[in-house]
Every structure is written in structure tokens, then in C-alpha cells.
């Protein structure tokens, strides 16, 4: 029997193919509930707030942000790193499902990928608007130009980052879209109105599920997932190089790439857990998103939490062991005991200590606890980026250049705006597309040979 890593069955109860199709496409076909409209209203308001803030940024300038000479990177980059980290889980699930053939990921994969797509969009917004002169963004494209002719700074991590994010966004959108073509075809064939039949028909690419196309389709998804696998590791690594290649104390350390990577997977899985719990609450999908699934995600979180804890300890150890006074100052004075002590300890408690509660079976099986812990982790991860960025920049080598950083309403507006974009995207996604891959789940359902008159059947099982 197919089970999750925690040993629970992947689908609770026996279902026919028709039941699977009906249940999973039912989430799209029914009229949305009140909470959906409420959510849409809230997130649209958030988007509007964000649009105002972005408009102010572009028309007035970066002076409307809380930045100053020392903290040249503030909330923009904190939020960028935070969102990009959240985005990692979707691709990680795709790899679990397609490369490692972990069937339990089938129920979560598509929603996690949707999360990736919208989170990476939110993340990509920050590097764009923090350019200040947004309209000059094409300077980053390497083409023979009239500015010299100058080429882009191909040995700058900032340029690598642009490439990494673009590639990641394109690849995750492609994986997401191609992953749902067979289900869009199902929706097309079930469509009641001409309009929805036309729209689903257009995007389903005339898919009928012929065996030859399934062969090519599986080859394609395997290749795409295979290409995405190194990306998952490299995108946040490259983000970390933005910091690690500099000489700022607290950034200039070789542990940063693995530390960022694990942090990304950690926060991404926490976000997946939050969203899965909410979806499970809102839709009748408990037999597909089982406690076993939540249990499996929480086991990944324990692992992530321990690695993160180790990374925090290693940073402190290396700062002490290096004997560099600036490193000592940043880690022990500024972060652990000084001006940023509160944020530092919030980060440690939220990321390294509270998730350890998941060792207890009772807590892993309590929806309330899981929801709380998953949200606490993402708060902690936001503080982690805050500590890394602000503490290192605001108190650098020269005490005469020390400053404090306070975000302005525009900073807050853009951050709230990205929440708006993210949740608007997710809400539209759950309205328009079956959020669990129907065809993947069908593989686990239906009447199997072993259910059917086993004595008479002597042919080889296929």
C-alpha cells in the first residue's frame, strides 16, 4: 500500500476514479463560500495599498523608504529573501514527487507549486522596484549597446541573482502549467458553460491522454523536475552570495549558502503546512490531505529546524574562533546581547527552539498546534533576514557611521502589497484549477487487480 513517510495511507477510504474526479474538481465547480469573497476583498485592499506604495516609490524615489547611507538595503531585501525562501517548497515537492517518486507529495504538489509561483513573483518585485529607476531595468540585458558598449557585470552576484530568479520563475511557472494540462482537459470535458469550456479547452492544449503523449509527458515532467532540482539548491545559494561575497561582518561567511538554502526549504515547508491546513479546513479534502501528510511535513520541519539551529551556533562559533574583532562585535555584541538582541532571540526561539515541539506525537497530530508552529516559523524566518541585514549594516566598522533603521509607511505598504498579490493569486488559483492533481491521485485510486476476483486472474500484474 502507498503510504506517506509517516506510514499513513495516502487516500483515506476506497474511491472510484469518478469519485476522485468529482471530489477534486468539485472545489472549482461549486460556488465560492463567503470566506472566499472576504479573502478576496482583503487581499485586493492589500494590493491597492501596495500599489500606492509602489507608485510613491517610483514617482518620488527611494527616499520614501527607511533606507539611509549605512543601511542601503532594508525591508526590500529582507522581504525579497523571505518570499524567495517561501517559494522553494513548491519546487521541492515537485522533486519529491517526480524525481524521488514520493507518491505522498501528489496531493500537495500543485498547491505548493502555485505557492512557489506567486511567492517568486512577490520576491521578484523587490529587486525591480528597489532599482529606483525601474524603467532602466533593461540595462541588465546583455546586448551590444550604445552605452560604451558596456556589458553587464557578469561577475557580480547581483547579476547572477537576476538570472537565478528569472530562470526560477520561468521554470516553476512551466512546471506548474504543464503539470496541470491533463487536469485542465478534465475540467474542459466537465465544463457546463461554453465560456469555461473554451478557456479550459484553450489551455489544455487539446489533451486527450493518449498513451504516446503520456510517455512524452512523463519524460518532459521528469526532465523539467530534474532541471529544477539543481535550481532549488542554487537559487537561494546565489541569493546568499549577494551577502557572502561582500566584506561586511555577519555576511562574509562561508556557511551562508547552505544556511540560506536550508532556511528556504524550512520556511517554504512551513508555509505549505499553513496553507494546507487552511485548505483542509475550507474544503472537503480531508481524505486526500490526510493527517499523514501534515505529519510528514512536520517531520521535515524538525529536520530543518535542527539544521538551522546548528547554523546559528556555527556562525557564533566561527565568529569567536576567527578572532576577528568585527565579527565578534557583530555576532556577540550587536546581535546576541546588544541593540538587536530582541530580534536575534526571536529568531532563535521561533526557528530553532519552538519547532522542536514537533517531536511530540500529540503536537504533530493537533491541527491547532501545527498551524501555530508553521506561522511562528515564518515569523522567525522573517526576523532571521532582519537580523542578518539590518544588524550588519546599521552597525558596521566605524561607530561614526552607525545608524538606526526604521521602516516607513511605504516600506510597510509594499510588504503588505506582496501579501495581497500572494493571497489574491492563491485564491484565484483555488477557484479556477483543481488544487490537487487529479490524474496523480487517480493512480492511487480505483479498482485494482488485487481487488477483483484474484483466483481467476493469472496474468502478470501490470
Amino acid at each position: 500500500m502507498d503510504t506517506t513517510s509517516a506510514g499513513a495511507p495516502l487516500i483515506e477510504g476506497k474511491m472510484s476514479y469518478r469519485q476522485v474526479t468529482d471530489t477534486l474538481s468539485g472545489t472549482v465547480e461549486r460556488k465560492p463560500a463567503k470566506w472566499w469573497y472576504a479573502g478576496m476583498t482583503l487581499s485586493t485592499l492589500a494590493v491597492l495599498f501596495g500599489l500606492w506604495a509602489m507608485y510613491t516609490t517610483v514617482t518620488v524615489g527611494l527616499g520614501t523608504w527607511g533606507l539611509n547611507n549605512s543601511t542601503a538595503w532594508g525591508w526590500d531585501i529582507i522581504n525579497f529573501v523571505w518570499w524567495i525562501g517561501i517559494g522553494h517548497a513548491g519546487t521541492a515537492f515537485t522533486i519529491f514527487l517526480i524525481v524521488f517518486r514520493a507518491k505522498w507529495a501528489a496531493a500537495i504538489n500543485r498547491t505548493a507549486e502555485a505557492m512557489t509561483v506567486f511567492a517568486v513573483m512577490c520576491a521578484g518585485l523587490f529587486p525591480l522596484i528597489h532599482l529606483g529607476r525601474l524603467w532602466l531595468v533593461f540595462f541588465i540585458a546583455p546586448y551590444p549597446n550604445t552605452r560604451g558598449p558596456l556589458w553587464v557585470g557578469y561577475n557580480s552576484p547581483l547579476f547572477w541573482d537576476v538570472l537565478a530568479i528569472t530562470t526560477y520563475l520561468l521554470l516553476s511557472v512551466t512546471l506548474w502549467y504543464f503539470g496541470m494540462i491533463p487536469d485542465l482537459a478534465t475540467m474542459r470535458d466537465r465544463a457546463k458553460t461554453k465560456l469555461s469550456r473554451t478557456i479550459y479547452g484553450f489551455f489544455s492544449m487539446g489533451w486527450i491522454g493518449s498513451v504516446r503523449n503520456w510517455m512524452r509527458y512523463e519524460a518532459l515532467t521528469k526532465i523539467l523536475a530534474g532541471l529544477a532540482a539543481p535550481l532549488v539548491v542554487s537559487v537561494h545559494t546565489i541569493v546568499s552570495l549577494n551577502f557572502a561575497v561582500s566584506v561586511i561582518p555577519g555576511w562574509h561567511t562561508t556557511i551562508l549558502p547552505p544556511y540560506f538554502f536550508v532556511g528556504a526549504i524550512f520556511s517554504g515547508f512551513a508555509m505549505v503546512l499553513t496553507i494546507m491546513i487552511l485548505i483542509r479546513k475550507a474544503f472537503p479534502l480531508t481524505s486526500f490531505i490526510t493527517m499523514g501528510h501534515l505529519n510528514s511535513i512536520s517531520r521535515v520541519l524538525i529536520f530543518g529546524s535542527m539544521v538551522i539551529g546548528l547554523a546559528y551556533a556555527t556562525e557564533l562559533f566561527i565568529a569567536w574562533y576567527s578572532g576577528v574583532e568585527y565579527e565578534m562585535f557583530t555576532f556577540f555584541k550587536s546581535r546576541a546581547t546588544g541593540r538587536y538582541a530582541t530580534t536575534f532571540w526571536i529568531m532563535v526561539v521561533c526557528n530553532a527552539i519552538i519547532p522542536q515541539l514537533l517531536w511530540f506525537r500529540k503536537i504533530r497530530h493537533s491541527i491547532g498546534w501545527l498551524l501555530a508552529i508553521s506561522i511562528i516559523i515564518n515569523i522567525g524566518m522573517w526576523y532571521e533576514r532582519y537580523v542578518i541585514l539590518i544588524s550588519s549594516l546599521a552597525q558596521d566598522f566605524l561607530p561614526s557611521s552607525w545608524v538606526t533603521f526604521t521602516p516607513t509607511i511605504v516600506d510597510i505598504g509594499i510588504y503588505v502589497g506582496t501579501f495581497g498579490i500572494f493571497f489574491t493569486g492563491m485564491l484565484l488559483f483555488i477557484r479556477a484549477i483543481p488544487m490537487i492533481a487529479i490524474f496523480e491521485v487517480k493512480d492511487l485510486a480505483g479498482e485494482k487487480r488485487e481487488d477483483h476476483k484474484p483466483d481467476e486472474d493469472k496474468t502478470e500484474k501490470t
Partner: protein
Amino acid sequence: MNQKGIIGIFTTDWQMSDAIKRLREKNIPVTDAVTPFPAHGIMKQLGKESRLPFFSLAAGTGTIILVFAFLYYIAVIDYPIIYGGKPFFAFPTFVIIIYMLTILLTFILTVLAFQARTGLFPGKEIDDPVHRAGDERYIGGMTDDRFMVALGGEEGLSGEMHESASTILRESGAKEILEIKRS
């Protein structure tokens, strides 16, 4: 000539798989099979291994060479500039760009190759055996819970084959057997 192709409609993948095995033994040509999910048993029987991975490998290798050549051209030939006394050809700084662009271009080329081979593109019309058979009742079944195997194709089956194919389909548990009307 009164030859017709036929379609067997099943409700489970393994029954259809058995039918295909027996049809093959009788040398009855199986044109196509349509399933609502990737039924691996049937895929193994009917499908050819996709050559897409080889295409990707070639595309990836080509991209690595191209990107490397481009970077070398920029850094050494077109605009040599000294960064901190390092050589013009500083390979380590190329690595990440080569890595990223290889992934980017390889996946784009692979997707395009997939679309070229399958003929799938946004907005394509549906073209499947059931639509050709013109039986309204089963349209949509193939993406829901019906497994269909089409026999005979364009030429159709001769009378004798037609009969034995129908028998095999029925014995293996086909819920329905449709005849493909020829225009």
C-alpha cells in the same frame, strides 16, 4: 469494402492491459489507447520510450558551449577589463552564469521539442478516437474514468479480425464496444 475500426471501452487499466496483450497475440493492430492517468502497464505495452531526454542532453551540452563562448567573447575579446588584478579569463565567475543559462535554455528548448513532437499547443482542437466514432456518450470519459483502446485505425479491421477483436475485448471485460464510423 466494409471494414471498420473499433474502440473498446474499459473501466480499469488492468482489464485493458490484458485485452491489449491478447490482441497483440492475435496480431490485431492497436492504433491508440487513451487513459485518464499515466497507466504504466499500458504505457509499457504500447508506448515507445520517449527520446526527449536525449534531446535535452544535446540541448544542454550545446548551451554550455554557447554560453561559455559568449562569456569568453565578452570578457576576453570584446571588452577586456581588469577586476582587482584578476585575469580576463576568470573561469570561476563564469560558472554560475553558465549553470543558470544552461538550465534556462535547456528547459525552454525541451518544452518546445515536446510541443513539436506531440503537436500540443494552447488552443489546439481535441482529436480523439471517441470523437471520431461520434458517440456523444463517451466524450469526456477519457479524462475521467474510462480507458479506451482503438483498433484498426484508418484501414479498419477485416471481418474475421473484427470478430475476434470484439470477442477478446468483451471477454477481457470491456464495458462497451464502439465502431468507428468512416467518413
